């Protein structure tokens, strides 16, 4: 553990925000960026701010090379079979929407989600239900907030075309048993789309090992620039999908009447891309790989364990999700009946510059169903320290004592 502390101190030097004395516990919303990522973005704008994949000059070639390098880095990071399985998007939401609108789902097709989905993995299916008459089934979690495999198994049938689940919940940090879920889905003839927004930044994901069909995640939750994301898809599936958004750079050629789409991933990357973002995301993945998930998980669990233990002493405080912090990754989402979650979050900021999120965390459906107004969510990452956790607990106790 002492080794970790030394490492964290060194790591924190890469993050400019820490120089200001801020305590950033809102990593589930967006992580901080190390200098390496910021430098990569700046390098693009300063040294080769050109179009990729179009022009022939040397600056454009460099952009194309750097973007493809980022694609390769991300493919390797996920252990994808080929880099063409990586589609750059703006965020997880766009990745999920791309699949939702490209799969060609029709009336009677069933899509399964869980009761803890982020709006990004709920609204698209509600819209398809309204537009095309698909059926949307929800698997409700068990009492301990873990995934109900039994209920899931019962819901699977020939009509289920897609199982779309959040791999790790942004509400309580619980990670679903993806391997088993995917096996069962495939057995039933369904495809699986995973919302990896809260999983990919924190856990090693091997898309081949898990046999994932589609995986959407955001760059900005894993040290990457804002507005960057990735949709991984098995190449054979991507090849069959109709592009969701079409236009520039998606076609090999066109006439006034016809067009010929490029193969994946180009056919899904319409219009001029966020080259700086893509290159920055490549740098972020490189950085994460260097840190290593063993350390990331160990650090998050240590912090979560400490905070969970300390929060138990606060009267009436309810932690959303399993009691065991090891099942909640880096997320500690809690509420105290009768006390305003927004006020707690704002006061943490005011008293000690501690940034947490408050509200319903884009999982309104879950909060509405449980009749809970909202929660305070502290989400830690590998660069957070035990001292910060101690400060958080101390300030929280102080605040709660006067509310």
């Amino acid at each position, binding site marked *: 553990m002492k080794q970790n502390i030394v490492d964290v101190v060194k790591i924190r030097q890469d993050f400019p925000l820490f120089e200001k004395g801020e305590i950033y516990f809102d990593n589930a919303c967006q992580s901080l960026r190390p200098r390496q990522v910021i430098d990569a973005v700046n390098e693009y704008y300063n040294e080769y701010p050109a179009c990729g994949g179009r022009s022939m000059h040397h600056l454009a070639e460099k952009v194309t090379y750097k973007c493809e390098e980022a694609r390769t880095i991300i493919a390797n990071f996920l252990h994808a079979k080929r880099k063409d399985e990586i589609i750059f998007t703006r965020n997880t939401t766009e990745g999920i929407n791309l699949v939702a609108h490209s799969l060609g789902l029709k009336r009677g097709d069933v899509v399964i989600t869980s009761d803890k989905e982020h709006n990004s993995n709920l609204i698209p299916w509600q819209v398809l239900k309204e537009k095309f008459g698909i059926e949307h089934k929800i698997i409700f979690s068990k009492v301990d907030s873990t995934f109900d495999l039994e209920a899931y198994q019962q819901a699977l049938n020939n009509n289920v075309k897609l199982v779309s689940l959040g791999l790790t919940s942004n509400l309580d940090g619980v990670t679903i048993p993806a391997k088993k879920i995917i096996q069962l889905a495939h057995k039933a003839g369904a495809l699986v789309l995973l919302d990896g927004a809260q999983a990919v930044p924190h856990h090693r994901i091997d898309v081949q090992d898990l046999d994932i069909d589609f995986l959407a995640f955001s760059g900005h939750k894993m040290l990457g620039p804002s507005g960057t994301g990735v949709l991984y898809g098995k190449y054979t599936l991507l090849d069959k999908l109709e592009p969701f958004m079409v236009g520039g750079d998606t076609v090999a050629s066109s006439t006034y009447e016809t067009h010929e789409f490029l193969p994946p991933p180009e056919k899904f990357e319409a219009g001029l891309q966020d080259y700086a973002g893509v290159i920055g995301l490549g740098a972020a993945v490189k950085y994460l790989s260097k840190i290593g998930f063993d350390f990331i998980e160990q650090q998050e669990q240590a912090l979560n364990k400490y905070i969970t233990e300390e929060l138990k002493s606060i009267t009436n405080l309810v932690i959303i999700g399993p009691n065991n912090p090891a099942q909640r990754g880096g997320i500690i989402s809690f509420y105290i009946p009768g006390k*305003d979650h*927004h*006020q*707690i*979050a*704002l*006061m*943490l*900021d*005011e*008293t000690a510059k501690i940034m947490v999120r408050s509200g319903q965390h884009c999982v309104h459906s879950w909060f509405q169903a449980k009749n809970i107004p909202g929660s305070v969510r502290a989400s830690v990452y590998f660069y957070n320290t035990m001292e910060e956790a101690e400060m958080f607990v101390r300030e929280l106790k*102080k*605040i709660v*004592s*006067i*509310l």
Partner: protein
Amino acid sequence: MFCILAFIALSIISIFSASHRELAKEAYDCVFRRLTFRPCTTGFKEKMKAKLVGRLLNRSAVAAKLLNKHFELLSWILFLTTVASIFWTGKGLFNFYMYGSCNGLNKSGFCALDPKGENNKVSQTGGSCGTGEGDESKVTLNGVNLDLFPSENIGAKDEVVLIGCYSCDYTRKAYPLVKKLISDNTVNYTFAHYPVKEETLYLLPIGYCAYKQDPDKFWQLNDKLFSSEKSDIARKEFVDTLLKGIGYDIEAINTCSTSPETNSAVVERRIELEKTNIYGTPLVFINDKGLVGPKPYRVYERILKGWKFW
């Protein structure tokens, strides 16, 4: 209630601080929603409450707890005091505009817009200068025989009376304004010399005799006495030169001013002026409304014309 309070406070701060304008807009949105019977969905109150309580918590947990617990009550108290403060500020501005004093007509308390009380200062009849400590509400023309004093445009509908002293700085300040007022408007104008300093006491009989000898030339004399240096008009030789320059018969005036009949006339006029309850100069009456101290021109004109605003 807090939103309204915050909107008022932030609007004022926003005049000087651009960084507070967004907050003011947020507060306005909240207030507007409340006024249109919709819930305030911005969370503005909660945000501000948390910030205030949080900031206080770093200094005193007890104070923070109290603020948190009684936030609404404190908001109400602050709101009411703010409203009262705005009301009094507005009233002060109105009074200053209308009467030249934040406190109202002939009220001599502190006025932020006239911090030295220049518009209320008078040379007191006791001889010293001050901000007027007599009973300002009692000045009146009731029962005062103005026929005894120099007048022009007799019979005009409006009436202006200036009771002042040639050596009083405040009368000297008001005099050109009153002159402008009577030259811009047709009014029955009466001037009464009420010396508050000994050095100009001797001008009482001279003025009486000058008006008696030639009423038209008297107004020239009056102008010259107010426009000359105070030290000069304290010397009889200087005043003699003035009288001579205007065309008065100096010998006749000197004879007149020392006569017993003049002496009793001067005393009679002095007694008559006391009926106004004068306690300092200048005292200007415009259509029976008495104004103590030199007022801005807008005040004189507004009262003369009966305007609500100038």
